[in-house]
């Protein structure tokens, strides 16, 4: 319950107009900081929902697959250049961002990840590696401006940022394979 409170505080903090404006003014911060933090706030608040609606989640998300699909869909949607642009220019889309990322991505992620089989986890992990690489390829390679609200140079920065994340994820995978994990347990 303490975690849920921290999540709520984080959520309110992110929703403060000056904070939101500041984070959205820089493209890479918008995508790789504000959005993950929103998911994180939902992730923290998920405990509250798990306590309140244990039956609902157990019934409809028993093996974690529906929840993780919802998480993947919401996250992928926010990777669209147009969604990022419209979050800045259209109030409705901005509102949708603040509802969807915590409650339709963060909450289901927390509820689903533990329930997923290890194959399910691997698929999701691989999907994210591939998605970040594709994103990097698009954002670095594109000669034209994908987002009207951001400069081309910011777009390239975002592309390299995504590539860095993909690289970290791959390194994590490699160390899982090559380092004997039992030494650390």
């Amino acid at each position: 319950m303490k975690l849920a409170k921290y999540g709520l505080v984080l959520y309110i903090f992110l929703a403060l107009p000056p904070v939101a404006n500041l984070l959205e003014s820089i493209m890479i911060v918008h995508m790789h900081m504000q959005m993950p933090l929103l998911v994180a706030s939902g992730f923290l608040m998920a405990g509250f929902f798990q306590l309140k609606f244990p039956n609902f989640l157990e019934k409809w998300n028993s093996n974690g697959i529906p929840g993780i699909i919802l998480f993947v869909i919401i996250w992928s949607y926010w990777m669209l250049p147009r969604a990022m642009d419209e979050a800045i220019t259209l109030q409705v889309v901005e509102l949708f961002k603040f509802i969807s990322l915590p409650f339709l991505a963060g909450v289901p992620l927390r509820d689903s990840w533990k329930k997923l089989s290890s194959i399910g986890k691997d698929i999701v992990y691989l999907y994210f590696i591939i998605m970040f690489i594709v994103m990097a390829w698009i954002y670095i390679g594109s000669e034209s401006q994908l987002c009207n609200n951001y400069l081309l140079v910011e777009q390239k920065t975002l592309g390299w940022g995504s590539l860095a994340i993909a690289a970290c994820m791959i390194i994590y995978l490699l160390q899982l394979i090559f380092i004997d994990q039992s030494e650390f347990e």
Partner: protein
Amino acid sequence: MTKNRRTMISVTLILLFGFVLFYQGTDGFRAFTQESARTYELLKNKPEFPSVTLQDSNNRTYTFEEFSEGKYVFITFMYTNCGTVCPQLEKNMSEVYDLIPSEYIGEDIVFLSISFDPTRDDPETLTKYRSYFGSDGETWRMARINNQEEQDKLLERLGVVVIPDGQGNFQHNSAFYLIGQQGHLLEMMDYTKIIKASDTVISYLNNKVED
């Protein structure tokens, strides 16, 4: 209900939701960037060219309607200090100009390059810039809009986004615009596809399609 059935139902509902979300968010998988969304929107709505007062390289001042006089107008937006896209844009525009049969030029269609940097692009600067691209200053004019409000309105209406980068340059989107005889936007064309653009323009001129 068994657990499996319920999972099937929730997965189906979520996939349906995802489909609707992406369908809505991309105008039916047509527009993945705001720029393409705007192009799609613009061509659907065909906005009217707002009333603006132009000052051209020969220091003449007139309104857009006085300039077009019911002709088609081929338009680009640029600024002369631009080192990247604008020279290419204007060079391509000159190629389109050359590809249009000369009997149409000045009679049925006129060309106009509008600068969105009126502080620096005075008539002298525009005259110099004009000469680089073979614009004659009559059937192809280069002009600025001195009234900031009018300029903003025009850029917004035609979906031209101009972001100053703080070092005297601008980040902006580029396209060929074709305004019809009634002053409505007819086409927004890829400025890198010269032949395609000139073919489109010529087909309008040949058919004199009323817009």
